[in-house]
């Protein structure tokens, strides 16, 4: 028995060329992609991570000598497949701008301050039920030059693996109620409103830590695992 990854699931993803996103013009393939049946090369995938994940890698507020500036937040949720089953022991990596909207990256020239106590990188491994948790700083919006007065809504980048190489997902978590949503070509590259909503975290009052941090829930739903098992040779 193995798992089936329906190609139809991919329809929620953005088109390769989303006209408002200018960086895509020279980087999107122009020839049609070739459909193929999945083989073991696609149906297997790296599910490890425990060797490289250190105990505190999921707390971005304690990586430096001092505390980072900005609004401390908890981000947690489950990595699930599309049947609602938790994806256990999968590596979850994240990276983000600091509270001022600045990345610690030589190419980021946005004139907002760097925070010497905030690197913006973290990783963890989901537990047996697919649950993950990070403590971090709420990132700021930043300008990016795609068009006049272009600002990215606040977001956190996530990278997850799942059960196979075809369930590999890199996405972005957004924050509820961001006024920049209607103007962002990357967020709006996902044309279905319900699918766009799945990239927005929900404010989680129940898991807010009093006197310490607000909490956001972000479930990451990966493709895969049709209910019908498939026999393989």
């Amino acid at each position, binding site marked *: 028995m193995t798992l089936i990854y329906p190609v139809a699931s991919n329809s929620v993803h*953005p088109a390769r060329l989303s006209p408002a996103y200018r960086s895509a013009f020279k980087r999107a393939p122009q020839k049609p992609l*070739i459909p193929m049946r999945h083989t073991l090369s696609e149906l297997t995938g790296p599910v490890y991570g425990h060797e490289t994940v250190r105990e505190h890698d999921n707390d971005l507020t304690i990586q430096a000598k001092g505390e980072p500036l900005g609004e401390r937040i908890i981000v947690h949720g489950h990595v699930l497949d599309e049947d609602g089953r938790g994806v256990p022991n999968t590596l979850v990596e994240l*990276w983000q701008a600091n509270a001022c909207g600045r990345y610690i990256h030589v190419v980021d020239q946005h004139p907002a301050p760097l925070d010497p106590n905030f690197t913006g990188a973290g990783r963890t491994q989901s537990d047996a039920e697919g649950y993950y948790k990070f403590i971090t700083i709420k990132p700021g919006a930043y300008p990016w030059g795609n068009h006049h007065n272009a600002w990215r809504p606040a977001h956190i980048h996530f990278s997850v693996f799942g059960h196979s190489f075809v369930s590999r997902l890199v996405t972005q978590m957004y924050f509820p109620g961001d006024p920049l949503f209607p103007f962002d070509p990357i967020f709006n590259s996902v044309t279905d409103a319900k699918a766009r909503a799945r990239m927005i975290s929900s404010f989680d009052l129940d898991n807010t830590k009093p006197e310490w941090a607000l909490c956001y829930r972000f479930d990451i739903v990966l493709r895969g695992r049709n209910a019908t098992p498939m026999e393989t040779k």
Partner: protein
Amino acid sequence: MSNPRPDGITPSQTVGPYFKYGLTPNGEYEWNDAFTNNLLTPDVSGERIRVEGKVYDGDGAVIPDCMLEIWQADSQGRFSDPQDKRALPNSSFKGFGRCGTDKSGGYAFDTIKPGVVPDADGKPQKPHIALAVFARGMLLHLYTRIYFDDEAGNAADSVLALVPADRRATLIAKRKAAAGGVYTFDVHLQGDNETVFFDV
């Protein structure tokens, strides 16, 4: 933990230009690498090879902010994944690598030549490496394969056979005659030499 069935999967978004700190620090930032471009382990068996090349955009310009990931079988065609029931715990070889392109768009992976993996019908596939391409400007990563020009009978491979004959060369790494074990494989996201990408 029971969860309600979700109403769909989470859509993909671009890796952006600033992934390096989180994903490919490679000594440039103070963050330990989860993965590197060197897959070799002391006990791995098989022919040691290097696959190197550059990534180009539709203008033929090199792409310095690209991330490549490879996934492959060991020299006997087995994957380091519990789902592959044929796998034997005889090696610490993982088969997964990650590399960011440098200022000249270049990348390299040090690994071993993969073995033969069955196709969807159980027939042998020619040795290949799965390759995923991520970059700013790409809203969803691209999937392709690296085959090897010194393997006989590539055209009979069931996946390669899906590719029009005049485009197959974009999937085949060329062995450098002068340097044993080094293959060249360039990725063209667009243009006359556009690499074949698969819809998986």
